[in-house]
């Protein structure tokens, strides 16, 4: 049979970035930001995220917190992403975000309040521009595109300094239209936004392979017309470097990017889930060998930048930080029941006054 001749119209490569391999050995010269101080700070933040998650799960088990999504095994993504932003940039989180929120200055007490059923936790005192945690999967990606539009608009119309929107979603989220629509628009409008995917291999019980037949998630950026990169999401240095680079490009007017960070969800989906029903034990055991906190810790120890004494001191310090937050959380006065009306509209419509009074009188 005659095979028609065609010419190559487009081709692409997807690169993967890693600085520390699974044995915590450097695979190449570390980036400039990777000073001992910065690496120790990244280690501290990952350790704090792990501690907060661990305690939050225990609080849920003892009835002091509602459903909670831990980020165990995914700390390098949150901390790597959060640390790559400037204070005035805007972070648009999803819900599995302990590390990133801590980096953004969100209080542990606020995180606990949110999962403890209190909207006031979303009123981030130290991250006033960041969007609230977002539960409907992938929707925050479009909000981030809108935020990026606003930041670009304000720069062009009002001469404000350049700012960037950064957002994160899970691997499952990449199956939703929001993911494609957000990337598509961001590329067409050249928006200053960075999309990060926490590819933890699972969307509740559905594995990555059942989510997409694509070899990588990063390559989905190519169809949208933007760069896509995969990073080792257990290597906080790689995450931080990739995101910082994409943020710098976006700030410089060079448009959006997608970063897929691969890791493994070493916990139940949430406290309402039992991953033992679907995660293969062998796979989990292997994934523990790659986890991000030990990765950086082992590197630091190997490089003479971390000792048992420092670890002990750190754990003491973090325990104090946590206890203080827990105390604040426990002593938090309950919200007024009428709060559900107070922020529904800027001004309560007359039509709702009767219901308001009815509730207030209860």
């Amino acid at each position: 049979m005659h095979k028609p001749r065609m010419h190559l119209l487009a081709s692409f490569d997807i690169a993967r970035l890693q600085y520390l391999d699974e044995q915590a050995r450097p695979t190449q010269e570390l980036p400039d930001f990777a000073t001992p101080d910065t690496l120790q700070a990244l280690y501290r933040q990952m350790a704090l995220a792990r501690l907060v998650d661990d305690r939050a799960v225990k609080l849920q088990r003892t009835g002091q917190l509602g459903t909670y999504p831990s980020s165990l095994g995914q700390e390098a993504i949150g901390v790597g992403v959060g640390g790559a932003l400037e204070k005035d940039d805007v972070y648009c989180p999803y819900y599995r975000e302990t590390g990133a929120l801590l980096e953004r200055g969100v209080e542990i007490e606020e995180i606990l309040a949110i999962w403890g059923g209190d909207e006031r936790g979303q009123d981030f005192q130290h991250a006033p521009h960041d969007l609230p945690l977002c539960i409907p999967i992938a929707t925050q990606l479009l909000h981030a595109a809108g935020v990026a539009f606003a930041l670009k608009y304000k720069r062009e119309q009002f001469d404000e300094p350049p700012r960037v929107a950064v957002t994160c979603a899970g691997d499952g989220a990449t199956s939703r239209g929001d993911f494609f629509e957000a990337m598509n628009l961001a590329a067409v409008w050249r928006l200053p936004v960075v999309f990060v995917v926490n590819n933890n291999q699972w969307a509740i019980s559905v594995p990555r392979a059942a989510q997409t037949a694509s070899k990588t998630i990063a390559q989905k950026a190519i169809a949208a017309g933007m760069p896509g990169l995969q990073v080792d999401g257990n290597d906080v240095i790689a995450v931080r470097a990739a995101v910082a680079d994409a943020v710098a490009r976006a700030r410089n007017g060079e448009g959006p990017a997608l970063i897929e960070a691969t890791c493994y969800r070493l916990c139940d989906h949430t406290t309402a889930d039992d991953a033992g029903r679907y995660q293969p034990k062998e796979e989990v055991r292997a994934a523990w060998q790659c986890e991000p906190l030990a990765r950086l810790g082992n590197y630091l120890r190997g490089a003479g930048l971390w000792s048992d004494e420092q670890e002990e001191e750190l754990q003491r310090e973090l325990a104090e930080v946590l206890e203080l937050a827990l105390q604040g959380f426990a002593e938090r006065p309950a919200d007024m029941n009428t709060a559900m009306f107070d922020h529904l509209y800027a001004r309560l419509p007359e039509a709702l006054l009767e219901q308001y009074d009815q509730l207030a009188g209860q």
Partner: protein
Amino acid sequence: MAEITLVEAVTQALAHELQADPTVLVYGQDIGVNGGVFRATDGLQQRFGAKRVLDTPLAENMIGGIAVGMAAMGLRPVAEFQFMGFIYPGLDHILSHAARFRNRTRGRLSCPIVYRAPYGGGIHAPEHHSESTEAMFAHIPGLRVVVPSSPARAYGLLLAAIRDPDPVVFLEPKRIYRAVRQEVPDSGEALPLDRCFILREGTDVTLIAWGASLKETLQAADKLAEEGIEAEVIDPATLKPLDIHAIIDSLEKTHRCVVVHEAARFCGLGAEVVAQINDYAFDLLEAPVQRVTGYDTVMPYYRLENSYLPGVGQIVSAVQETLDYPAGDRR
């Protein structure tokens, strides 16, 4: 002063706010060079530039979603959906986010967004171009739902919607986009979003309608007047929150009421009006409130749409029935 149509009043209001407030921007499908499929944004891109009047890719979920991020950062986006029948992919963001952001963040971030969409039947359009699902939006806490019924009200209400600090779903009755012309001064004066408009005063019966249905409702009122029946016609205009007190005030005079809408009857807004009259004004009634509505069917293709849409005759009969109540032969 030139007289303008309802759709031109929409353009005039958009232009006024684009001029007055640099945080206002307008976007949607084909709204730039083309001025929108109904020409509601005609000339705006030319006047205000492609950075403030933008054509988007074809994705309604995206149109609904990006407004949330824009508004949370202090802009005032006005998003156009080409037809109400295509707004549904955007519902997720309108209902789950725009309507909730202020509450979710305890007032830290808010969504001063206007989602515009032409709605309703009667223009011989293909399937999906003629629905009236205003009640779906009116059900959602945190939203405002506004429907203008004249050029002047389109102008004044749209100004108010754009300036409102919360999300507004602004539904434009496309059947009457060009039905009448009116002088509408470009005064920048907004109309209130929490007040009914009394379009005609009367003492015998209260007729409540909004959008394009007001055309038939006012015609019915004329016809009834010929028989000596004086109908009071009320246009709530803002369907949520609903100014029930103006309706009750009217019932103090008339003691009879008919609600007209072209949307399907079941869970239509007429049901809410009837329920609230029950709550607050049952003792005023001399007869049960009547509803004249679309049928609980799929909106038919246009050959049958006039059979579906409430007509003048049905409104007049409903009024007759409330006046005849209790009918001797039924008791």
